[in-house]
């Protein structure tokens, strides 16, 4: 700063150094406009593409969505077909997956970030968790088949499917929990410790509530991904057709993405439209799940402030 002032004083061309560049201003403004326009274009093209896909799916499938579509089982006759089994399967999967992955993931995240001693072992685990987040879902499917289905003998059940999807969700939940906790200002933590709170009290009463919105975002992302998966389910032996509602964790199952996959590969055009209708429902399920999470997030903020 001082240097600049000295310079401008020495040359005495103008009152202020920035005024020297006035001749440049139009050009720089133009550059800035071009950049803003490119950003706008990128955003619009992405949103446009998604809007087109959703609209196209909606136009294809909307006519098939009615009460029967939700209460009928799949059938070889398109007009008698419904997604009852798939919808129940997805709800079961989502429920069991959330039950396992959220507590384990969040607690692991807190432990890794706040309580575990930094060292080689800590670094070893951190690197591996990050790597696991990038492993393709098919690989989880193969692992689940070998471990849950065959070794532990859970067979081709809802439990095997949900546990595999839990494993797939864990890295994302752990990483986002860690990041959310790391983003909590250290003044909060220091303040609590200085007042004589134990590590546990600090984590429970101060760090965790502050980090909750970030953690929930990670949970939403992870579970949304899990609910949309087909590849691991095919390997795990989720079925393409069943006409009963699962009664418990050890039943066979199908899920919305499986139903879409099954219908899309049929020769008749009507089934492709049914698949489009199922996509709309799947999007709806994701939207409902996300809004519940957002609702909790907003509420947790209100409670805190």
């Amino acid at each position, binding site marked *: 700063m001082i240097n600049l002032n000295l310079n401008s004083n020495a040359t005495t061309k103008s009152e202020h150094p920035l005024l020297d560049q006035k001749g440049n201003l139009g050009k720089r403004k133009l550059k800035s406009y071009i950049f803003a326009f490119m950003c706008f274009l990128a955003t619009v093209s992405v949103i446009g593409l998604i809007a087109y896909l959703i609209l196209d799916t909606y136009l294809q499938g909307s006519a098939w969505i009615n009460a029967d579509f939700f209460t009928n*089982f*799949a*059938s*070889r006759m398109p007009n008698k077909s419904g997604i009852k089994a798939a919808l129940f399967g997805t709800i079961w999967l989502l429920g069991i997956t959330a039950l396992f992955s959220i507590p384990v993931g969040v607690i692991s995240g807190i432990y890794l970030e706040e309580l575990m001693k930094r060292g080689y072992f800590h670094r070893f685990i951190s690197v591996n968790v990050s790597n696991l987040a990038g492993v393709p879902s098919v690989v989880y499917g193969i692992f689940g088949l070998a471990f849950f*289905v*065959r070794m532990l003998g859970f*067979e*081709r059940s809802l439990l095997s499917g949900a546990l595999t999807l839990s494993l797939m969700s864990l890295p994302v939940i752990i990483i986002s929990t860690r990041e959310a906790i790391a983003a909590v200002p250290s003044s909060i933590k220091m303040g609590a410790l200085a007042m004589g709170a134990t590590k546990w009290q600090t984590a429970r009463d101060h760090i965790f509530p502050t980090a909750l919105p970030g953690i929930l975002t990670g949970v939403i992302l992870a579970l949304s991904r899990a609910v949309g998966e087909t590849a691991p389910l*095919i*390997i795990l*032996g*989720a*079925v*393409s*057709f*069943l*006409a*009963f509602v699962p009664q418990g964790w050890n*039943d*066979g199952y199908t899920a919305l993405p499986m139903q879409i996959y*099954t219908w*899309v*590969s*049929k*020769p*008749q*055009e009507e089934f*492709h439209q049914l698949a489009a209708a199922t996509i709309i429902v799947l999007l709806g399920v994701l939207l409902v799940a996300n809004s519940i999470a957002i609702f909790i997030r907003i509420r947790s903020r209100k409670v805190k402030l």
Partner: protein
Amino acid sequence: MKIAVLLLTSFLSAHAFAGLSGQVRIDGSSTVYPISEAVAEEFQKANAGVKVTVAQSGTGGGFKKFVAAEIDISNASRTIKKEEAEAAQKAKVLWTEVPIAYDGITLVINPKNTWVKTLTMEQLKTIWEPGSKVKTWKDVDPSWPDSKIKLYGPGADSGTFDYFTEHVNGKAKAIRPDFTASEDDNVLVKGVAGDKDALGFFGISYYEANAKKIRSVAIAGTDGKFVSPTVETVKDGTYPISRPLFIYVSHASLARVEVANFVSYYLSNANKLVSETGYVPMTDAQYKAGMAKIAAIKK
């Protein structure tokens, strides 16, 4: 209160006496899937207590699960391979093979293709064999136009691919590499429907569902007569590229009433349900022979 209890007990007993319980697990070929799905749908309606599941992980994938005793019935679009049979023997899984339908492999072209009406098995071989010199339609027949021929066929994991290569090219999996391959037959349908110079092949049910968009080609068999793929020609064996489809039933599973009932339901309703799904049913005598085979094991 009394009424509620009465209702509840009657509901429970109705459930318990509705007949069968237990489960029937089916997996395997995606070609056979629609047939087994149709049977499962009807059987499930008649037997609410039984849990019938049908999956499609391919003929090979199905046999792996079959050998691991994870399923009761394996759908197959080809006969069991020697290695698979050995694996089953090792795992002490006894089985019976029951043919349930025919599938005609249909050669299809674009409706705008005015020159091709028929193809002989030899012509098919010169087009599809490995190292084929055919680049344009003219290379197949000098009177045909000099435009590039575009080939579409199922990918190497499909039973249709295995059968076609073995039957037309003389060796399983032997095929020229430069064709558009997809495991999804709908992709092949779209490709042929949108390309004037296309030639493709897949199962007859995909042709029948899209007969407005694509055209089938009559094929000459050994006697030199050109035969179009239809239900009749596939059924009587005059259409040269058709194959039987099977279900493989595990003997251990067959000891369970629900599986035994399912298989006999399958065979006694196959005629109607196979036609409904776009495949070609076998003769009644063949289904009866299948029933006899199953009955012999139960004893």
